[in-house]
């Protein structure tokens, strides 16, 4: 007999539920042997699929054929819309969030974010503090709820070009609670969210073009630590003390070095 909660367990596995429901389902899975097996089976199947299916890419010849077809279309294509490009990118970011997120709450939260987020010309530190504050005030703290790095990291792969270091450091006091996408520096940034005691730490990462990152700074009582790793710029933002924040940054840097060696 199928447990009536099985579809909710699947939705939880697919990161389609909000934080409160996630907690509820986690409690249920602890009690219900059938759902525990189901959750395990879902994880296993995903792992098997990832391992067994080769990532298929479009053959260059077909790509060239398509380019040629598009070239031939040039003269007949409709004139560009009058809407400025930046606006279209913003609405796009909204729909990406809405499509991948947690339903109406996420849509409302994204709308709020879009209104509050400063224009992309403000210094990155201000953008980061705004994004951090918005994540705390709105329900848009997390798009993918998971304490499992193997869930969060692939989720980013499907939602942004950025592939940051994702790891749980619960033994060290930094519990991974999920990830989300924010809009920073004209691009989609991956945000890994940690809890440290009562504090939330947002670790932003985005493809960096600058050779020098901004120095660490404090804005409105929030500390910001910047660093680069690989081709990404990172910034950790929180209202924890400097030492706690730098502690997490150290762990993340060490992890990046380990991953690079592998």
């Amino acid at each position, binding site marked *: 007999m199928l447990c009536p909660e099985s579809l909710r367990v699947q939705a939880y596995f697919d990161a389609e539920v909000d934080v409160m429901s996630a907690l509820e389902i986690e409690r249920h899975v602890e009690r219900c042997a059938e759902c525990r097996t189901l959750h395990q089976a879902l994880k296993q199947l995903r792992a098997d699929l990832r391992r067994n299916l080769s990532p298929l890419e479009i053959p260059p010849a077909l*790509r060239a054929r398509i380019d040629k077809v598009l070239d031939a279309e040039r003269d007949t*294509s409709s004139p560009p819309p009058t809407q400025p490009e930046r606006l279209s990118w913003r609405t796009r970011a909204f729909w990406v969030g809405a499509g991948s997120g947690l339903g109406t709450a996420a849509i409302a939260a994204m709308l709020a974010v879009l209104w509050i987020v400063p224009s992309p010309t403000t210094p990155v530190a201000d953008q980061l503090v705004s994004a951090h504050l918005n994540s705390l005030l709105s329900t848009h703290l997390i798009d993918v709820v998971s304490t499992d790095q193997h869930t969060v990291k692939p989720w980013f792969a499907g939602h942004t070009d950025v592939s940051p270091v994702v790891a749980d450091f619960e033994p060290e006091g930094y519990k991974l609670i999920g990830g989300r996408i924010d809009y920073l520096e004209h691009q989609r940034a991956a945000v890994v969210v940690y809890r440290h005691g009562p504090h939330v730490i947002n670790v932003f990462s985005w493809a960096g073009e600058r050779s020098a990152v901004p120095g660490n700074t404090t804005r409105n009582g929030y500390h910001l630590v910047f660093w680069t790793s690989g081709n990404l710029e990172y910034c950790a933002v929180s209202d924890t003390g400097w030492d706690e924040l730098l502690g997490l940054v150290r762990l993340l840097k060490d992890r990046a070095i380990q991953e690079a060696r592998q």
Partner: protein
Amino acid sequence: MTDTRRRFETQVLPHLNAAYRFARWLAPSTSDADDLVQEAILRAYRGFDGLRGADAKAWLLTIVRNCHSTALRQEQRRALVPLPDENDEQDGYALIDAGPDPESASMLRDDQRSLEELIARLPEDYREALILREIEDLGYREIAAVTNVPIGTVMSRLARARGVLRKHWLQQTEGESRAVP
């Protein structure tokens, strides 16, 4: 390069690989998949203004799927008139669409069957939900939009697809371990 083309390149073409992968799952052969992708990209380009704020990946995959349905309908109409030759290329369809149902497929005891083949044998409704979720990483809302069904249907199709696939996969891997002395 025109402005429209440039915007198309930045917004839609990053999802070209996703479109190609999806087409490969839908179309009966590689060359059909090539044609399907080309047709879909052309339609997407002509209808690019229709994208507006929507998510480009889900939008493009929807077009791929619609093109596939149109092609399939045309094939079926053509197939109504003459009986297909023995070596007619349309036989390829039978491999995927009219193949044995999942239950009897499991009776074939083909230990070498790969996970990919098992997916190909899923009923098309199940298969596309599974592919869009597990391979293209779309959310339920996006899958519902691409496949044009309510979210509840997406959830139950996914559950069935995963259940059937897991069952057959386990049967096969167990069969393999039995085969090893």
